[in-house]
């Protein structure tokens, strides 16, 4: 039976991860014949299916909230006591942000508070990873399913980055303290000690100016500034170009609710070396070199191994491609469908 479904999120953007996930979720539901609309506080894109929060009547058969930070839409759901499915993408823990951008922690704290407020109204929850699911269960959510975050396949035509004689390391993600890009900068210095000439491309917009400035100063102090590329928010073609140029995709992030760039890198045949924090090991699924220790010597050794050992490299690339196929495209859509099916069947008309 066809249902009316409201996908509720704070803001709808052109490219951010939550908006992309919500759009693909809409496509899955619409393809199955359900009537879907977005409910948002603000929209940055023109889309005929968007309904602003102040006009929302909360009369759909099923309401699915995208939750990753404190928002007015979540407050409205709690205030109106709307039965909801919480689609949880995780919230950056405060301790990472507080030393750098104390003014940002209010939104994060609010988001975690809202998890408690929504719990009595949430008849189910969908999480990107088991890691996220554990967090919700700790808060008291009971019916929690796991389905990987949905993301667009990138185009195959990349724009090549400037040539470099040594090896190219790539990391994609916001310049944010929880992503720990400083560890990657430190690894460049350790690679120097191993006699390996490397450059590091840090791609992604910044959420903290002070963190960005500190990374620059840190790179200068270590004498590697010329080999660190702060690419910022790049176009899709540039991003693909960097993935294609990557000798290794390397992550020392300490907090990932899923880790889409890991999967994208795998899809483009870049071997992945990553610190095994939060959801990273389950996303990697054995197809990356996941490290229990991210001291510079260990990460540098791992990179050297992947670069110099053709068998390991080939195996990681092959396993990575298979893993990326599991977590994206039709397989990911099918997984989401199987999670949504009972929720749609039980939704009141």
């Amino acid at each position, binding site marked *: 039976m066809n249902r009316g479904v409201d996908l509720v999120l704070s803001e709808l953007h052109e490219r951010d991860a939550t908006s992309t996930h919500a759009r693909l979720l809409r496509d899955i539901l619409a393809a199955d014949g359900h009537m879907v609309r977005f409910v948002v506080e603000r929209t940055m894109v023109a889309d005929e299916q968007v309904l602003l929060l102040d006009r929302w009547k909360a009369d759909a058969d099923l309401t699915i909230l995208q939750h990753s930070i404190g928002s007015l839409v979540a407050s409205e759901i709690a205030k109106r006591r709307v039965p909801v499915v919480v689609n949880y993408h995780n919230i950056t823990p405060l301790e990472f942000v507080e030393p750098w951008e104390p003014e940002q922690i209010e939104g994060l704290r609010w988001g975690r508070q809202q998890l408690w407020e929504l719990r009595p109204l949430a008849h189910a929850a969908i999480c990107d990873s088991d890691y996220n699911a554990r967090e919700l269960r700790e808060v008291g959510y009971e019916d929690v399913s796991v389905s990987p975050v949905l993301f667009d396949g990138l185009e195959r035509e990349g724009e090549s980055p400037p040539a470099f004689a040594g090896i190219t390391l790539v990391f994609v993600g916001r310049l944010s303290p929880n992503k720990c890009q400083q560890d990657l900068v430190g690894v460049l210095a350790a690679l120097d000690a191993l006699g390996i000439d490397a450059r590091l491309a840090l791609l992604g917009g910044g959420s903290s100016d002070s963190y960005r400035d*500190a990374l620059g100063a*840190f790179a200068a102090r*270590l004498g590697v500034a010329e080999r660190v590329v702060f690419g910022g928010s790049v176009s899709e073609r540039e991003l693909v170009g960097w993935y294609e140029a990557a000798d290794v995709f390397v992550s020392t992030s300490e907090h990932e609710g899923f880790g889409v760039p890991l999967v994208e890198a795998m899809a483009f045949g870049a071997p992945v070396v990553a610190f095994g924090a939060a959801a990273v090991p389950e996303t990697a699924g*054995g197809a990356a070199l*996941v490290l229990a220790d991210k001291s510079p*010597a260990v990460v540098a050794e791992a990179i050297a*191994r992947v670069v110099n050992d053709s068998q390991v490299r080939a195996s990681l690339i092959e396993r990575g491609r298979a893993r990326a196929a599991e977590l994206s495209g039709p397989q990911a859509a099918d997984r989401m469908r199987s999670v949504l099916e009972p929720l749609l069947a039980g939704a009141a008309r």
Partner: protein
Amino acid sequence: MSDPLSDEQLPDDRFAARIQAEVMAAAEERRREDPKLARIEREIERAWADVAPPGAVGPTEELLLDRVDRLALVDVDAPIGTKPGVKQVKGAIRKGIYWYLRYMSDQLNAFHNVQARLLRRFDDRLSRLESVIGVDSAVDDLVYPAPTAGASSGRRLADAVGSGRVLVLAAGAGAALTELDNAYGVERDPQVALAGIDAGLDLRVGDPLEHLCGLEAGTIGAVLIGGALQRVSPAAAIALVASAAVACGPGGIVAVAVEDRSRRADAAAELLGDRGLAPTTWGAILGGVAASTESVKVDDDGLEALVVARLS
């Protein structure tokens, strides 16, 4: 035991665990052989501490305490020396600072100084307590490795365990795993673990305690504790057993492969002293969480018994 598999044949998680162990062992060896690398790692840590704000210098207590020390002093000498301005105005500012701000900052500095000293005292005390309760048992293990659960312990446990997954903590080269179905081990030392990984066993390199504490409740059928972990103090043993019981849940099994202290060489006996508990003591501790406990003899090198507890 199955034949070792080639890289291509290994399942994803076993392949990654094997390469991880090799990488960690290689990094350790390189650090030992090349002191320059260890120095560079320290420089990296210090350089980041210099540019990062307080509280963002990572998990190293020593660095955080250095930060506390540096930040404890409130400097009231306003940086007006290099700024343009009339000399008399600057003089007036200095006087104002001297008569008012100086009075306040002296009190704050005294307060911060006491706080910093207290934190250092706490840090020292915590380190001493940790050494007393045996958190540092791995250090002893470097000198006199504790015997790990072997094939005999594995067979004994296999008789008792049902169909659930078995976790062997401080598994060494994984000898116990050869006798257990659906089992994996965690070993801290990558060099030791590599021997088992090369033999095709499901062994992971990491901190066994961290691994245990990271498991969701009730997700493991049985936990076998061995190696350095059975040399911990009574207080740490109680906490360890409680954590293992949570990971297993009702009906699960917690077992301890207990060292035979009477078979220690003279030097080891003297240096290790009373470290480690007797099978009867482990039985009593396990009795706190279990419906029944049983101590069985095993033939593994250096071990006295396997104490098996079925959880209530």
